[in-house]
């Protein structure tokens, strides 16, 4: 929609691989990471360059990955493995170390494989299954401490509290900015869409974090200037909320379909989306402080079932649906992503009367038409309901 800062972010992203090449020549080291529970702040504070890796939506790369892993693993994991096998991705080929957490056991497997087959140096961060207990917290504290030690050895420096505090400040700034952008994109007459914000988030995982924070603040200013007053008599919209398995960069199938059929995405609780930036408050600039804060966030679905009334993931989902004024939820699950697939039924039950559509898919185009029909009927269903509500 012609936002100058979005163009700047795209330009920064285009020049980033070359920039990283230069930085590596100057002795800087790059740490690729995945997934929900890797504390980037620590990587950054040690003077290392964190880059989140992993893309989706490419059936060919899934096949390449599948030569090394069973097809009963989710397509995301298979594709990322394919990316490591091919080493053509401009970031993956420049990684000096890969940090992976064991939030989802499938990613843990990925770590073993890239280390074994493709000679990447790796570090694993253990994640407790029972994160609500005292023992869980103690375990995770030790894990983060251990993780920090390994990174210190790799970086050749020790973690300084002041540096960690600096990093925390930058990341806090990023988290706040992303939340602000999310609230803007969901407004009527917003000058940027959910898709734009999603692209901004994905870009951020590759850019220098300080530079990224500056760009985000610039973007917010520009958005504030360009948000116009909503007009009367807006056309009836189907405001869609996305939930479920991650939708990484490159995987645009479902998003394209929703938009083509006149749905408007207004929010999400994906770990590749907004959830990653929510409810993270580091009270003390130490590995323990970081560990506690990460564990107290909204839990990832791959961790065990909680009591329904106290499951923070579901409470957050309900809250976000309201906040973004969504009309219905499209719950996206990847094949063999048991974590989210098994929770679809319970999520639907908890949301009671909120229109709910589950889309079970993978990275191939063969189900394009089938998804299209479902999403189209879902959008019709929502619009129909709103039309009737307007009449009475």
């Amino acid at each position, binding site marked *: 929609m012609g936002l100058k800062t979005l163009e700047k972010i795209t330009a920064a992203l285009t020049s980033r691989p070359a920039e990283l090449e230069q930085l590596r020549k100057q002795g800087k080291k790059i740490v690729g990471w995945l997934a929900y529970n890797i504390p980037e702040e620590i990587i950054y504070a040690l003077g290392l360059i964190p880059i989140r890796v992993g893309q989706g939506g490419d059936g060919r790369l899934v096949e390449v990955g599948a030569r090394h892993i069973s097809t009963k693993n989710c397509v995301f994991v298979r594709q990322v493995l394919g990316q490591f096998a091919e080493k053509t991705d401009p970031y993956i080929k420049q990684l000096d170390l890969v940090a992976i957490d064991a939030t989802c056991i499938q990613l843990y497997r990925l770590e073993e494989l890239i280390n074994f087959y493709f000679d990447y140096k790796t570090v694993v961060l253990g994640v407790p299954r029972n994160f609500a207990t005292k023992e869980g917290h103690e375990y995770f504290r030790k894990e983060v401490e251990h993780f920090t030690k390994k990174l210190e050895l790799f970086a050749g420096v020790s973690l300084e509290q002041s540096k960690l505090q600096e990093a925390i400040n930058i990341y806090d700034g990023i988290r706040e900015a992303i939340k602000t952008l999310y609230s803007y994109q969901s407004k009527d007459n917003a000058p940027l869409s959910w898709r734009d914000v999603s692209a901004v988030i994905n870009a951020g995982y590759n850019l220098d974090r300080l530079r990224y924070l500056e760009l985000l603040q610039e973007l917010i200013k520009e958005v504030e200037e360009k948000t116009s007053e909503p007009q009367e008599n807006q056309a009836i919209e189907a405001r869609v909320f996305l939930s479920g398995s991650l939708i990484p960069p490159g995987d645009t199938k479902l998003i394209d379909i929703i938009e083509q059929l006149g749905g408007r995405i207004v929010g999400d609780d994906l770990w590749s989306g907004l959830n990653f930036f929510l409810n993270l408050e580091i009270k003390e600039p130490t590995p323990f402080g970081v560990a506690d804060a990460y564990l107290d966030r909204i839990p990832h679905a791959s961790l065990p079932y909680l009591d329904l009334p106290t499951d923070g993931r579901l409470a957050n989902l309900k809250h976000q649906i309201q906040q973004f004024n969504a009309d219905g939820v499209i719950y996206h699950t990847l094949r063999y992503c048991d974590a989210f697939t098994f929770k679809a*039924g319970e999520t*639907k039950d908890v949301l009671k009367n909120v*229109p*709910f559509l*589950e889309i079970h898919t993978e990275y191939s185009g063969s189900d394009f*038409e*089938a998804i*299209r*029909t*479902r999403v*189209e*009927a879902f959008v*019709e*269903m929502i619009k*129909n*309901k709103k039309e*009737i509500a307007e009449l009475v």
Partner: protein
Amino acid sequence: MSLNKNFFAGVDVGSLAAKSVILQDGEIFATGLVPSGVNSVESGLNALNLALETAGLKKEDLTYIVGTGYGRVSAPYANKAVTEITCHAKGTNYLHPTVRTIIDMGGQDCKAIRIDKDGAVIDFAMNDKCAAGTGRFLEVMAGVFKVRLEDLGAIALAATDTVPMSSTCTVFAESETISLVARGEKPENILSGIHHSIANRIAGLFSRVGIESDVFFSGGVAKNIGMKNAIEEALKVTIVKPEIDPQLIGALGAAVLARSFSKKEGLWA
């Protein structure tokens, strides 16, 4: 027949058949049903022309046309396209306002649809991952027994026993059936097993959507009496008797929608 009255048409192009319904004054005026060919535009037009011929009308006499079914995406003759889910809901509600749950079994997919008193969709689930529970599957089975598709259900009704069928994948079920025949099982008992295994699969579709009576069975497969009985047993419901050929429900819903859209667009008062 007065030509100054408005006529509305719905055209439903499915994978095995194309259907059309023309409405006038809220009454079904004419219908058309033809097998689908490879060209979905042509199939839709054939079905429409058949109804027009029966009605003694020309295409120009139609005020509004709504296309549905998988052929809706390429239906240049239609003013608007609507999914078959919404159309089955509307069509069913038009004829049977007390229905709240629809099972639609077509040529290539199977749907569970929940609707409210106005025929608005509340929830739905769809199975199109495989041919199980579809017209295509039954067509293959009819081929194995060398009987007409239409007779399949009636044959199953004569069963004295139900031979369990473990495969619902068309390819495996076909070979499983052949081996059951070789083992000397009676065709009617095997067919009963096939119908029950499909019905159980359909019951699974309803686990998330739920069932509320009255229940209606639409789509081409709804004409299969064996299937109807097996579903009634699996879902523990009684299916409402259809007033018209249940295969035409999608096209009827499309015609009903054509009427509302044209009114909304101010084409008539």
